[in-house]
């Protein structure tokens, strides 16, 4: 690893180097903390940085290595968690003022699994408030910026990594990294602050496809604390990234290559397809006929569930409380009025409306029916193909402030990622090109329920065939 700065290492290289004592966890952690010090003021990727704790944990990892043991596949490797995962005693803001000082009394299942695997927690990452956004501009803690062009958005809502409508894949695409949203039920939601319970799913954002596969192997699995998590064995995802794609049938849904798709994105995704075909995969044109209804469906179901999930933030037990209110109702109203930002309020109101007496059937009931149709679209498509290839986002990263006052345009940036959440299937975004402006572009691969292995294999093949710069150029 000589000569390569540690922040450019892959997770698997770092893990191996620590195991083989080429580098200590302390060295690695210190180097990344220094880089956070240097870069974070510019890109605002972290809400909370934990230098003392991280160094303590790293030292403990080093002692364990010296004693001849490694806790797990991530032993000593510094990682960060999106501010949506509960961490016992460590501030978990969810990007919101209403949780600006919230220290959870418990660890999320994902937090626990990451720790058990030996990872060192660097801090909690910035995100759109309650994961509601596509640009990280709705965070109470200020917008995060795209490392490739700091006047642009890094995508949203992550941070890294939960995905309700694209919050892992879209930022991964816009920042030139890999983002994997697993099958709904693959990763426990326990301790992940809920946005839309039937859509939320945690997953990794990593530098490479094998890195993402390694992390998913750690965090996946059945959890009896989450009734919606599914008891399906966790396969060797890392092994899947080395699988051949020869004979793989790759579906191209015509609805995803229609109007509104940026030319540079189209070209890059076509390159990704060519790469797969050159390795022996077969391209199949398919149709997902209900795609045009996905966005509307998502913006009923997501807000409806959110309106109920976010009702608990009332200032009574934890989090922000407005001072000086004269009575209970006034205290609750003012707390929520002051504690939530505009986008969160917009979705709470949409969701409350959609669930109201007299409107339920027309909105929530109808949306559930359309959701069933969307799911069926995928089922039928997957009868003839192994994976589906699409763009992850319609355009490369847009400028900060460009869409923040225009929610409808903003919502359209998730148009390719949302159907996957509604169907509960896995999806991954892998870098496949650069725009003429030097901005990263990602390709999205969608798989069958619990067939993360197929999309890992295809994504890894694209990654190998299309060499791209791994790290954003340092700005002056």
């Amino acid at each position, binding site marked *: 690893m000589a000569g390569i700065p540690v922040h450019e290492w892959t997770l698997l290289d770092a893990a191996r180097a620590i195991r083989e004592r080429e580098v200590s966890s302390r060295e690695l952690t210190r180097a990344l903390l220094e880089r956070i010090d240097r870069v974070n003021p510019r890109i605002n990727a972290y809400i909370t940085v934990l230098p003392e704790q991280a160094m303590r944990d790293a030292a403990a990892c080093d002692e364990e290595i010296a004693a001849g043991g490694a806790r797990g596949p991530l032993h000593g490797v510094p990682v960060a968690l999106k501010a*949506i*995962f*509960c961490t016992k005693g460590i501030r*978990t803001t*969810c990007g919101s003022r209403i*949780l600006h000082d*919230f220290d*959870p*009394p*418990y660890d*999320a299942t994902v937090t626990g699994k990451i720790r058990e695997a030996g990872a060192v927690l660097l801090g909690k990452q910035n995100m759109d408030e309650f994961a509601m956004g596509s640009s990280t501009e709705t965070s109470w803690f200020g917008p995060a910026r795209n490392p490739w062009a700091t006047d642009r958005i890094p995508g949203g809502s992550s941070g890294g990594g939960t995905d309700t409508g694209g919050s892992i894949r879209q930022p991964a695409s816009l920042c030139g990294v890999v983002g994997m949203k697993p099958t709904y039920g693959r990763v426990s*939601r*326990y*301790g*992940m*602050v*809920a946005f*839309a*319970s*039937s859509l939320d799913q945690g997953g990794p954002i990593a530098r490479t496809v094998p890195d993402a596969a390694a992390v998913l192997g750690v965090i996946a699995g059945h959890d*009896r*604390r*989450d*009734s*919606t998590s599914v008891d399906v064995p966790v396969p060797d995802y890392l092994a899947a990234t080395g699988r051949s794609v020869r004979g793989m049938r790759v579906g191209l849904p015509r609805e995803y290559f229609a109007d509104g798709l940026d030319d540079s994105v189209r070209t890059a995704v076509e390159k990704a397809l060519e790469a797969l075909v050159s390795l022996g995969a077969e391209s199949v044109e398919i149709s997902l006929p209900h795609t045009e209804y996905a966005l509307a469906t998502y913006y009923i179901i997501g807000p*409806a*569930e959110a*309106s*109920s999930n976010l*009702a*608990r*933030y*009332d200032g*009574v*037990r*934890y989090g922000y409380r407005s001072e000086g209110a004269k009575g*209970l109702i006034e205290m*609750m109203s003012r707390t929520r009025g002051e504690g939530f930002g505009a986008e969160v309020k917009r979705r709470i109101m949409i969701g*409350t409306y959609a*669930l*109201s*007496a007299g409107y*339920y059937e027309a909105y*929530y009931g109808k949306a559930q029916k359309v959701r069933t149709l969307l799911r069926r679209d995928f089922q039928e498509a997957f009868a003839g193909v192994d994976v589906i290839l699409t763009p992850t986002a319609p355009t490369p990263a847009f400028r900060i402030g460009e869409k923040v006052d225009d929610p409808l345009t903003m919502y359209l940036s998730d148009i390719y990622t949302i159907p996957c959440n509604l169907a509960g299937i896995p999806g991954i975004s892998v870098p496949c090109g650069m725009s003429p402006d030097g901005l990263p572009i990602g390709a999205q691969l969608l798989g069958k329920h619990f067939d993360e292995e197929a999309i890992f294999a295809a994504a890894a093949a694209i990654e190998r065939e299309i060499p791209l710069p791994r790290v954003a150029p340092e700005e002056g």
Partner: protein
Amino acid sequence: MEFEAVIGLEVHAQLATESKIFCACSTGFGAPPNENTCPVCTGMPGVLPVLNRKAVEFAIRTAVATSCRVQTRSVFARKNYFYPDLPKAYQISQYELPLAVSGHIDIERNGTTRRVGITRIHLEEDAGKLVHAGAFAGAQTSLADLNRCSVPLMEIVSEPDIRTPEEGGAYLRRLRDILVYLEVCDGNMEEGSFRCDANVSVRPKGQKEFGTKAELKNMNSFRNVEKALEHEIRRQIEVIEDGGAVVQETRLWDADAGVTIPMRGKEEAHDYRYFPDPDLLPLHIDEAWVEELRKTIPELPGEKIARLASRYGVPRYDAELLSSSRLLADFFEASAAAFGGNPKVTANECIQWKEAIVAGRLSPETIAHVVEDRETGTISATASKTLVEAAIGTGKPVRQIRDEKGLTQISDAGALEAIVDKVIAGNPKEVESYRAGKTGLLSFFVGQIMKETRGKANPRMVQEVLKARLG
């Protein structure tokens, strides 16, 4: 005009599970405030509910015992509203698709059987409670105790089949007894583990359509339910007779004043925005599970009453009293089996000593032995009472106590005759007067004999022997 009441009852029964319905916290009563809580039942960000299997079992057993149809698929929904005792700001409750539907309970009144339909049985979680510093109206602070949050409740909704307050009371008592028999609820109304709301309307007798109903709340005893229903029926009839119309509203029973009063405001205007809880999968209950649980259903109160009456020949009223507790009925049967004498006497004793029996402070042998000793004349009725009292809580055989206290009667005819003869011989004047017609002196002789035997003579036999000797 003659009016008829139409009553439907909604019961909330707290299930006697050890842990809460969606987390592992204890359901124990009387813990210090907020002791029985965890991140899940206090609604921390990110937590998820996991359904308690035992609570489902209890509800299925109740459904089977009330002839309900258990639905293969039922769904938990969220009932959304803001209140400080509701940490998630929604209550998880089964709404559109309840666990069970279409059952009934038979109640017997004055020799006839009335069937009250059960619309539905569903599961839900309880809320916490607020403690106000000082009087509610002027309270400066309120404190929330979340111990009760997520304690499992089962709601049992009756059809509007009840016509009188007495029928309502009988239905409630029978339902309570069934739940207690099944050991799914402790049935304690005063402590709130068995709560009842009522929907009441009146209509001219013979009319098919229902009148406008009022919902009654805040009735914390069986007697209060009956009184509240009586009052509300009378009130509604008066409103109509005075030319007015009954208003659909929620009314609270004020037990001290003996009236129902309209409840003001807050609960009336709610839109609860029910929707299926995405954190819980639909609950699937297969036929095999129901059948397995059906085998665990004990003999229920109605069957038991009928059987005790026919098998032991005890009056129906006694059979009802005996069956008011499964333990008492079992005790009675064990006592009757231990001594084959007249079960009616055994039944009376069991009813008399119910409190000690239910508390487990008496053994069936104690009752069997005193009943047997009385029947053989070995002890008197007075001694019987003294003996049972002395046996309560000691575990000592009652016959040992009898012998230690010397409470055996002299019922041996020969022995008594000797004593009688001795007394006759010692009191010639009184014998003469008696024989001359002063029969009132008989009690004098009885007294003398009791004195001689230190009260142990069997009084009935003493009289018989005396009469024969003096006659």
